[in-house]
């Protein structure tokens, strides 16, 4: 245990980040199930409105800040040095520091939830509906939330700095940026996005802290302050951050698809450009998330929110092109990647409708918009993670996962996520707003809410099945060969699991598929 706690090996630190993210995923999932159970019938009374709001806040904070962020860092910490042919991260101790900051931030958010009498404040994950209330709220819980988020922001910033520095300076000779594996490229782009986006939330939290503790008036309209500035800063942070946290999952799937299709990625340069395009364009659509942007800017933000969907769609098309021209073989990583494709596709369609009609029933604040955001960003990040874990399990644990278990769990998860979030599109079209705790008087909403709730239960079963498959694989799985999938990138050129220094020998890198090149050379030599 002590070796784990003091580890500086990137694989160990990465796995610890993944463990932290998994624990908070379970917490967010259980909370989500409680929230969905409250909505299973029009006038259910599982929890009262106040408790619903508190749990909703925790669900969002856990899901974004303590699941998606640690998992982003963990997967990247574990795999990026292996893909670069590097023996370590650029700053190994800084990576360990990120872990402790995540844990500290998570502990503070849990402490906020357990604070006697008040519990976590009711603000939603964006904390925006009532920032004026937050700035004047009494109690320690709100402070714990603010400081906890600050620590998590620091953790993800340090992780992003570390990973960008690693990718730029730790590549093996011959591995130019043009030859960078797509997953590492997605981590580079998302890392830069986080470096630009997260500090804005840090600034907002600092102002909120001054308002709460030193009598400031930054967000106080009665003293000349600007409460709407909180919402603007938050969405300037959140919109690119959500895309950034999705990108590594997309990057992993972009590597998986060609391996299992048995051919190089169709239009690789398009995929590379699409990921970079998302990285740039995601910063321009943040205003589309505002409840009431002024009319002059609504068109600009709406157009930007539509345009960013283009590169994402183009990326999916490269997957389809690869599958069409290849000879796909069935395995758990490709099943999860295909599931990811359906989720991202449905999410992009939902976001497109919201961006085009931001003020209608399907606009900002509707169940439609909420469903699309979950389908694209949360479900996308989660299933992208499952695909990556199934693919890289040999390198992470030296074991293969049970294929039937992984496929069954993935199918249940993807099916459950679709059943949870697609009915929210229907509910939005029917006029249901997000954050509603009951819907008495709207009996027509019952069927979709029932399906959505059952879908949520199925998704949890899927998560449990995948988790059990991974735990079984770690404890009793079949030892994995070094290159079980016939991969193309450098992580498949070392043992499973890799030694502490990662590589004894590395192939000469003269393309973006060095291990595939080596395989070809060996076959040619034998012939």
């Amino acid at each position, binding site marked *: 245990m002590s070796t784990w706690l003091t580890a500086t090996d990137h694989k160990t630190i990465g796995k610890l980040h993944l463990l932290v993210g998994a624990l908070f995923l379970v917490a967010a999932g259980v909370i989500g199930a409680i929230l969905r159970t409250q909505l299973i019938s029009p006038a259910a009374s599982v929890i009262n409105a106040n408790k619903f709001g508190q749990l909703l806040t925790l669900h969002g904070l856990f899901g974004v800040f303590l699941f998606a962020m640690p998992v982003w860092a963990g997967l990247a910490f574990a795999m990026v040095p292996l893909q670069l042919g590097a023996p370590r991260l650029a700053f190994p101790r800084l990576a360990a520091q990120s872990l402790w900051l995540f844990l500290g931030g998570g502990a503070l958010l849990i402490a906020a939830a357990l604070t006697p009498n008040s519990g976590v404040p009711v603000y939603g994950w964006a904390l925006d509906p009532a920032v004026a209330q937050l700035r004047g709220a009494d109690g320690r819980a709100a402070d714990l939330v603010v400081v906890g988020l600050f620590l998590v922001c620091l953790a993800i910033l340090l992780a992003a700095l570390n990973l960008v*520095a690693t990718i730029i300076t730790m590549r093996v000779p011959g591995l130019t940026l043009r030859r960078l594996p797509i997953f590492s490229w997605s981590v580079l782009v998302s890392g830069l996005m986080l470096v630009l986006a997260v500090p804005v939330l840090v600034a907002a939290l600092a102002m909120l802290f001054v308002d709460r503790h030193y009598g400031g*008036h930054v967000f106080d309209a009665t003293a000349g302050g600007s409460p709407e500035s909180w919402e603007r800063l938050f969405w300037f942070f959140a919109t690119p951050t959500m895309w950034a946290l999705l990108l590594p999952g997309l990057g992993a799937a972009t590597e998986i698809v060609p391996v299992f299709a048995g051919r190089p990625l169709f239009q690789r340069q398009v995929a590379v450009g699409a990921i970079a395009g998302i990285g740039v364009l995601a910063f321009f659509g943040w205003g589309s998330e505002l409840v009431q942007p002024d009319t002059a800017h609504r068109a600009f933000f709406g157009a930007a929110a539509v345009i960013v969907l283009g590169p994402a769609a183009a990326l999916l098309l490269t997957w389809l092109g690869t599958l069409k021209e290849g000879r796909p073989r069935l395995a758990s990583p490709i099943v999860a990647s295909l599931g990811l494709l359906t989720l991202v596709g449905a999410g992009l369609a939902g976001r497109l409708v919201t961006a085009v009609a931001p003020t209608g029933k399907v606009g900002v604040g509707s169940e439609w918009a909420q469903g699309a955001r979950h389908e694209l960003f949360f479900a996308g990040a989660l299933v992208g993670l499952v695909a990556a874990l199934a693919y890289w399990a040999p390198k992470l644990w030296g074991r293969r996962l049970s294929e039937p278990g992984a496929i069954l769990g993935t199918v249940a998860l993807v099916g459950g996520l679709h059943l949870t979030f697609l009915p929210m599109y229907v509910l939005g079209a029917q006029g249901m707003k997000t954050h509603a705790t009951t819907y008495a008087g709207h009996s027509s909403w019952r069927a979709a809410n029932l399906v959505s709730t059952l879908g949520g239960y199925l998704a949890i079963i899927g998560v449990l099945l995948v988790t059990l498959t991974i735990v079984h694989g770690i404890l009793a799985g079949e030892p994995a060969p070094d290159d079980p999938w016939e991969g193309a990138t450098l992580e498949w050129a070392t043992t499973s699991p890799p030694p502490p220094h990662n590589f004894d020998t590395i192939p000469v890198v003269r393309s973006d598929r060095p291990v595939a090149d080596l395989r070809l050379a060996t076959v040619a030599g034998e012939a």
Partner: protein
Amino acid sequence: MAVATRPPADVAPGGAPALPAAEGPIELPDGKGATALAGLLFLVADTMVLGGLLAVFFAVRGQAPAFPPRDTHPGVYVPVVICFTAFLAAMSAQWAVVSARRDDRRNGLVSLAMTLGFMLAIANIQTYAYRKLGFSVTKHAYASLYYLLTGFHLANVVIAAAMLVVAFARVAAGHVHPDADGPVRAAARFTQYVNLVYLAVFIAIYVVA
């Protein structure tokens, strides 16, 4: 290393050239330049924090009937002195960099000590200004943002001072040479950056507002 024996389906005969594995020990990446790059990224992140503060400052200004409020006077004397001191700090920081490049330890120590002195003077002037301002952070939104922006600059001044102390100690210990001048360059660059931060704060508070 495991090598598969089945050729990938996509590779046509005579396609990609055969690529052997590197023989013997290979040159592993050592992360040279990682610290400088991480430092640069930190500056980018720091600038984004400043950007967030300035965005709210201008948002508040945009909806205020009078900005700063009529009974609030941040004064001109202190910021001008700080600007002048920051200019001197920039000059002496560059002097330190040149000294390190020339392996001139004596000039390096003098210039670093001067730069450190200028940064401490800036911190001193700013805290003096806080006592003489006549308005506190609780007065109104302008006051809160004045303290936040100048406090942000002050925090960066403290970090710069800490880096200058480290650089001074490294030069004094003989650890800095023309081909290993990282500590001096990092401290000097951060000092220049902090001066740019003050320039932005100065323009926002005293010129534009």
